[in-house]
């Protein structure tokens, strides 16, 4: 017994002594910089991760899984109303430079504040730069390295553009990968410098990136295999250039800085002076994409009016309309986000009366036009087919699994499940755009980050602004034809001939609103046009429908008679002039003494 115990004691101390050398050494085998960039698959994985945030503003579950910038516009009402919700802060104008991005001293990316506006781009710019700096050490072939470098550089431009259109000029850090000991104190670059840099990058990338079909005319770089579909292309580079130049020509950035800005701020947030020639540059850039001949609109009005428009969002490959997409596995993301409860959706985002009124009639004429045939007592009849393909209204039919058929969704007061209630969130409408309303199966799809229709609209807008209104209208007509609007006897799809530039401008803007609805454009557009103070200040409209008599059935309204009343939404939108640009996070101003805040903040 005694010996045993002594042995034990001896053993325990001996154990301590002999393992001492490595006892306090770290014992994980986690991945490190060397193991990632020393391996070609992991290097490509690193690049893939940099693609992953490409759709961060587009994705519907952006904030707290259900908010998005579309709630900060006149197009949609948000299901939630908590004052802390990012989307609520954005539309109610209750945010400041110090609250919007989280309250901590240190900005940290959280999905319950607006920090992603600032952080996601910078995080990804670092990733791009880190990858570029490590590429020469990787086992990839030189041609592959060159292509990966081109992809990374495109993504860097993409993330810079996210900053540029939200904040104005930001520091251009070039290829810098910051180290822990680096002190960051660089001023914001001017808006003009940012645009010049990004456009130059894109011009160069357009000679390096593969075409939409995967071929790469540049022999120094590899092309894309079939398995690479979804990576950035030459078309994407030119299309992004078109978007950047369109923004640069727009009223907000083309000499349109806030009146409170001093001279330095003016150059940071805009071109100090307006120049109409920037519209010409934008028009040229859009034209370059159209002339590529690699893309087009998906048109099918034979199956059903506007079916081409509807199905373009549900088709992953081939999709001639998609220039830059965020490709996804089969899913029901959009349906879960938009659909009414009776269809298993979460109706986080509901269309307003405002956007409903923006859709013209089937004949292409606005509902305010006395000749349009609009009947306020039967407001949903004979509308632009895009209306049907964008909005679920009282009596719209949507597939329901329990019925194994498309049955009617009712939104009238007292309707089961989806009905209108004045005291809460419903607007009387639900969104159908990008959703599959014919089945409940998962659907492969790509989020259209840039699609052909946008370039057409970019081109039309730029042409109109340089005075070429009739050519601009021709572009609209191609869109309207595809949408399923009737050509009319004059073949002008409801567009009066001889429109003045200002009239055409309103028409183009309206067309852009309904064509690109819910595709992450509206919030940017009303800012760059500087119309947000007019259109996004006050209460949105909602539709309260009452059943006067009759009994609606599952297949349709039957003998039901309705009365329609537009009521205001519950929550007021507030847009102040400084909100045309988001404030630089206050903590950043505190940390970087050379940073100038945006005017008015």
């Amino acid at each position, binding site marked *: 017994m*005694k010996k045993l115990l002594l042995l*034990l*004691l001896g053993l*325990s*101390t001996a154990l*301590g002594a002999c393992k*001492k050398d490595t*006892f*306090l*050494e770290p014992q*994980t085998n*986690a*991945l490190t*910089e060397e193991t990632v960039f020393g391996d070609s698959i992991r290097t490509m*994985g690193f690049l*893939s991760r940099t*693609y*992953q*945030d490409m759709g961060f503003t587009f*994705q519907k579950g952006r904030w707290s899984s259900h908010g998005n910038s579309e709630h900060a516009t006149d197009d949609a009402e948000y299901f*939630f109303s*908590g*004052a*802390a919700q990012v989307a609520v802060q954005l539309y*109610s104008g*209750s945010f400041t430079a*110090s*609250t919007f991005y989280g*309250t901590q*001293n240190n900005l940290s990316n959280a*999905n319950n504040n607006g920090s*992603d506006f600032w952080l996601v781009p*910078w995080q*990804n*710019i*670092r990733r791009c730069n880190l990858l570029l700096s490590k590429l020469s050490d990787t086992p990839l072939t030189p041609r592959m390295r060159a292509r990966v470098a081109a992809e990374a550089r495109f993504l860097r431009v993409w993330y810079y553009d996210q900053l540029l259109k939200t904040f104005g000029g930001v520091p251009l850090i070039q290829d810098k990968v*910051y180290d822990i000991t680096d002190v*960051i104190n660089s001023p914001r670059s001017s808006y003009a410098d940012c645009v010049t840099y990004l456009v130059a990058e894109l011009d160069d990338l357009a000679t390096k990136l593969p075409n939409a079909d995967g071929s790469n005319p540049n022999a120094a770089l590899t092309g894309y295999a079939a398995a690479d579909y*979804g990576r950035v292309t030459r078309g994407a580079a030119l299309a992004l250039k078109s978007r950047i130049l369109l923004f640069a020509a727009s009223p907000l950035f083309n000499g349109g800085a806030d009146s409170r800005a001093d001279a330095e701020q003016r150059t940071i947030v805009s071109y100090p002076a307006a120049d109409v020639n920037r519209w010409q540059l934008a028009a040229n850039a859009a034209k370059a994409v159209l002339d590529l001949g690699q893309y087009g609109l998906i048109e099918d009005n034979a199956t059903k009016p506007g079916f081409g428009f509807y199905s373009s969002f549900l088709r992953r490959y*081939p999709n001639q309309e998609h220039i830059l997409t965020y*490709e*996804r*596995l089969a899913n029901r*993301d959009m349906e879960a986000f938009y659909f009414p*409860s009776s269809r298993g959706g979460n109706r986080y985002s509901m269309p307003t009366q405002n956007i409903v009124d923006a859709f013209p009639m089937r004949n292409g004429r606005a509902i305010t036009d006395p000749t349009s045939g609009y009947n306020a007592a039967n407001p949903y009849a004979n509308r632009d087919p895009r209306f049907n393909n964008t909005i679920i209204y009282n009596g719209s039919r949507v597939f329901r699994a329990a019925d194994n058929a498309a049955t009617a969704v009712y939104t009238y007061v*007292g309707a*089961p*499940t989806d*009905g209108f209630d*004045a*005291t809460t969130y419903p607007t009387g409408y639900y969104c159908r755009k990008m959703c599959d309303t014919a089945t409940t199966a998962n659907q492969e799809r790509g989020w259209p980050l840039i699609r052909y229709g946008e370039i057409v609209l970019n081109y039309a807008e730029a042409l109109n602004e340089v005075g070429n209104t009739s050519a601009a209208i021709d572009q609209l007509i191609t869109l309207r034809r595809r949408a399923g609007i009737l050509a009319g006897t004059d073949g002008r799809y409801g567009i009066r001939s001889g429109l003045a530039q200002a009239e055409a401008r309103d028409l183009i803007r309206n067309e852009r609103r309904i064509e690109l609805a819910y595709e992450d454009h509206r919030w940017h557009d009303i800012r760059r046009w500087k119309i947000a103070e007019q259109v996004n200040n006050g209460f949105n409209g909602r539709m309260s429908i009452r059943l006067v008599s009759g009994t609606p059935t599952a297949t349709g309204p039957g003998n039901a008679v309705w009365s329609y*009343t537009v*009521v205001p939404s*519950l929550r*007021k939108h*507030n847009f102040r002039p400084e909100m045309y640009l988001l404030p630089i*996070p206050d903590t*950043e101003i*505190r*940390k970087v003494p050379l940073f100038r805040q945006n005017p008015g903040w």
Partner: protein
Amino acid sequence: MKNLLLIWLLLATVVQGAYAQGRTVQGVVRDREGPVPGVAVYEKDNTTNGVSTDVEGGYRLTIKGKSGILIFRSVNYKLSEVQVGTRATVNVTLESTDQTLDEVTVVGFGEQKKITQTGAVSQVSGKDIRENPSASLQNTLVGRLPGFFAQQPSGRPGGDGANFFIRGVSSYNNNNQPLIIVDDIQYSYDQFARLDPNEIESLAILKDAATTAIYGVRGANGVVVVTTRRGKDGPPQISGRVEVGFSQPTKLPTYLDAAETARLYNQAQINDNNANPAANFKPRFTDDELQLFRNGSAPNSLNANGYDNRGMGNVDWRKELFQNWSEQYRANIDISGGSPRVRYFTSLGYLSQNGMLKEFGQNSGVDANYFQKRINYRSNLDINITKGLEMRADLYGNFAQVNLPHPGSPNSEAFNANDDVFFDYSSFATLAPFAYNIYNPDGSYGYSSWSKDVQSNTNEGNVIGRLNNYGYRRTFENNINTVLQLKQDMGVLGDALKGLSATGRVAYTSNYSYYRQMIRGRNSIPNFIYDPNSATTPYIPRIADLYRIQPYGLGYSAGGTSRALTLQAIINYDRTFGAHHVSGLALYNRNTNTAGNSNSIYNFIPANFLGYSLRVGYDYKERYLVQFNAGYNGSDRFSSANRYGLFPAVSAGWNIAEEPFFKNVAPVFDLLKLRASYGLVGNDALGSGQTYYYVQNYNGSNNTTNNNPNAPITFGQTTPGSTPAGFIEGTLGNDNVTWEKEKKFDGALEFRLLKGALSGSIDYFRNERYDILTTRGTVSSIFGQNLPPVNLGRVRNQGLELELGYQSPLSRAFSYFIRGNYSYAKNTILFQDEPNNQYDYQNFTGNSIGQQRVYIFDGFYNAADLANRDVAKPLTPVQPGDLKYKDLNGDGKIDSYDQSVSGFPSLPNTTYGVNLGVRYKGFSVSVLFQGASNFSVAGAAEAIKAFGSNLTAVHQQAWTPELGDDARYPRLTLQSSISDPVTNRSTFWQVSGNYVRLKTAQINYDLPTAWLKQIGVPAARIYANGTNLLTWTVLDKLYDFDPEISLNATRSNYPPQRLVNFGLSVTF
């Protein structure tokens, strides 16, 4: 397991041989108060020959051994050895262990005489701890130990342990928890909370550098040292206790009834409509419907105002969900004793703590209440192997079961923090008093259009149905600890080595837990909206096509597992040379802790620690005292260059009362001591999650940065099978990372006079924590990657502790005592790399850890304010009755720059306790009042916001033009506003939580021995005690909560409990 314990016990009670001597001795055993019954009296060399004293303290014993020495032993008294000689009558007076100057206090790896102690230690005996029947050990300490700060936010069985800190907090990194040492082995918090008070001999907190430096890199937050009871020489002593307790919440919010709630809801709608008038507006409830509510009924139709109120109910949810009292049972049995060779203490304890829910789930065969059941066991053995070699073998631990119901609360995952019936209870959207009828006329679970459509984001179904059918999760814990120790007294080898001993110790701890659950998923039971007006479909299903209850699903998962191995080798020296007393200690300590981690990189990667400690002490005639302590530690959390650190401390004391001159001047003093200590201590608990801050890791990750619900990108023309693996750079590494350090100063005066009747002490301390790991706040996010924390921060923490006690002479039949303590600990952030704020009042630096930036409440807006351009207003529109805030920067608008750091943190900086007791013969009563002040409480969302929370009396006092600034709540609204407590924290919502509590009270009655004799029981006691019995707080001006809820609580949770407990204890 139990068999093992029995065998252990049998082994320990080895009977020793005996032979007769044959003389009878008798006498009476007393203490200062009078006769002491139940004292074990036995021969020193023949311990089996023993008796217990009777009621009058008398004994009679026939001597059989040779030594002629009698030993008198009883709990709470010092062991007494008496040479019988030729006497036939031997009367003995026992000395109580907690009344003498020879009293020892526990310090790190040993004990010290209190008189020569130079460090700051507060100690409480196991007996005092047992006066509080709370199930978690730390809850029994509140108010008893100066320097002990605690806050108990929850009363959930199995999760009611308070957060506690020694001398407040000194680091803003949430790693302020003290080190816990039980019998020299490090313990985790959960293990500590589950210790059975019956096993505890004493508990001490070590507060200053002199006492904590020996723990080196782990001592900066203070140390809790627990010693457990051990066997003593003598015949077996068996004591048992049974207790029955009843608990109820100290405070559970009471909500308004359906009629009042509906009236106020209408009012809120009217208020909102005034801001944004709509044509034909009518509020939700018609006058007829309000009358229905008042009559105890509820509307059930599409009403005249155009709203769908079908299926509404009128329910008192408090009555339906909770029972008035829940029970707690506790039983203990312990046996202790020993012979010269073997001493043992074994104990077995059982605790059953029931939850406050009514019994749900019985119909579906499940127990869906909260509960905890726990068995604690301990066997402490001391064996003398040879002369001078002593073995200690301890085996102890507990088995516990903790049960949680699965109510399926809105917006929650199963069993996460929000899946809690208290959320449902406090939420207006889920459980307004008119939410729905529990049952329909046909017996099905009721529901309403209101809950289904209007409150559709909390549409989770009938709460009673959910509780009855959604099942439970039961967590099983098994915690086993063994300690094996050998101690060799070197003194037996020769006189030169006298006082020297060597100890080797191995301890192994294994914690294992797993849960089993039986649950149903969301929407698995049918509810129906009852519409009596519909002839065709009177029962509308909540979910179309759901008519049957779906089956249960079983689940199992292993939970937190951790294993810790500790090896220690100690050399101890303690010897007196005439007037000189020298002591010393050298320690080698090695510790490996292998635990699960949610970060897969660190899962089951051992955390290793290596340390050497040294203590040298000297005193001259117990008059001049000096001690040196040091720890030299290494930890694997740091890179090799920064791995080892030295933590030294010096302390000194002067016992003025021992000076001959002073004895002449003021003989009334038994003790008057000045002492001070200064030293450096460290803290290597740098935060969870990441183990090695000095290593940068890359991760495989497919999620987009923004927590996008699984929307990874994919490439390829054909249907891709999967998404490409993404790899991502992790937080950068900081090669220079090191532990936090704290310089601690402590100075104190201790005194005791009037023969020990009056005693007290004053301590002043000043700690400066530095090298606090801080994520740099001044580096721009343009950096693009998370920065590793660097050792930058500094916090000063200083305060005062007072203790004063008076004990009336115990020799009288009537005696009383009064003891009070007061602690104050205030910290100040000196540096935390905070960005340069635009306004100084926004700086957190210079304030205390945990203070918030809030608006300053300045009354309510009225109509005149709105018209007045000079009154500052927020960016969003305001209405009369919204909260008005001070425009601190004077720019004419209210925005976040007008928020200043105000109020107090949620942890009190002042805490105090007063303990009073009286005793008359066998009766005794003691009470402990405890209070805390200088802390802030704030609520939000379901905790206070009208229509987020259910409505309370305070909402009836919401702003109206008539009430004006007398209103107790801003205007009622269903919309968000500047007054919103979630987004716009202000001093209106952040209020003081100061409270005073009757923390514990105990009544004891020692049953007269005359009765007990007849049933053959030597001693028995009945008692009643309780905890959290009464609370006085200023919090109830606004909140209907217990004052210890956490800051910015968003809802009610399982409230802390008031417990009344009745017990019987018997000693054989």
